[in-house]
């Protein structure tokens, strides 16, 4: 059992952590939620190994886990103002540190539902169909969230 879970962690752990970072904007919270997510994976491993698209299934689980975490935090009134976490970095050195900070700031200003479509589409490589399955919304909703997010980012980055 442990080896199979370890394989899942090695293949998807980092991607899931990035996604959770985007959703929660806090590294410690994202790590805790990721550990909880794997706890659930162990519990429901039979169902998970039967999933047609394991990656989409795991992302949908991660999203639910993050949502439950946020709900619990609100209940406990622990949702304090958090430091904006740096999420992405340039692939090459042609992009300056200031530019990187600007992009991260622009991303942090997006509403969560737009931010998650952007991360799933651009950096996680999901199709709109897969994103709609993960987020449990229609394809049109996904596409419009993506469009709005791109427009907002454009405006933010022009400044």
């Amino acid at each position, binding site marked *: 059992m442990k080896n199979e*879970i370890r394989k899942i962690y090695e293949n998807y752990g980092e*991607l899931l952590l990035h996604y959770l970072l985007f959703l929660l904007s806090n590294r410690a919270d994202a790590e805790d939620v*990721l*550990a909880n997510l794997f706890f659930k994976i162990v519990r429901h491993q039979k169902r998970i190994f039967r999933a047609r698209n394991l990656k989409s299934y795991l992302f949908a689980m991660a999203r639910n886990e993050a949502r439950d975490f946020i709900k619990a935090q609100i209940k406990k009134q622990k949702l304090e103002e958090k430091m904006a976490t740096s999420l992405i970095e*340039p692939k090459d050195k042609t*992009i300056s540190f200031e530019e990187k900070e600007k992009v991260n700031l622009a991303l942090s200003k997006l509403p969560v539902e737009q931010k998650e479509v952007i991360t799933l589409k*651009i950096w996680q490589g999901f199709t709109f169909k897969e994103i709609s399955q993960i987020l449990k919304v229609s394809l049109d909703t996904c596409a419009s969230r993506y469009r709005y997010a791109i427009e907002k980012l454009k405006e933010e980055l022009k400044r």
Partner: protein
Amino acid sequence: MNIEEYLRRFQFEKISPETRRRIWQKIERKIEGIEKEKISLIDKLWNWKYATSVATVVLLLSIFNLHLQRYSQKMMPVASYKEEILDPDTEELFAFLDENPKPSLLSYLNYIREKEKAKNFEDYILKIEELLG
């Protein structure tokens, strides 16, 4: 500027091996917790199951034995009455049906048995009378 292409020039910040290891250790602890929980549950279930299953088997065997004894006692005479059922005396059957408008097999068997007892008793009296002369 094509914003999508621009964003693709970025990537997620690398997660350090230490962070990866730390998270895996958290997960590992949770997995071990689940395994321990499972083992203790199996132990509990096994003890509980073992005790109850042994008791159930003993109980079922004794009930079965009791029923078997009763059944064999009942079936012994019934077997001989079957012949009469297969070849019933028509008059006797009609008499029985008169007395029992809604007969059941059991009531018919009882009826036959009573008759048999009476018959044996008559034979017994006749034998005694013969002996007495």
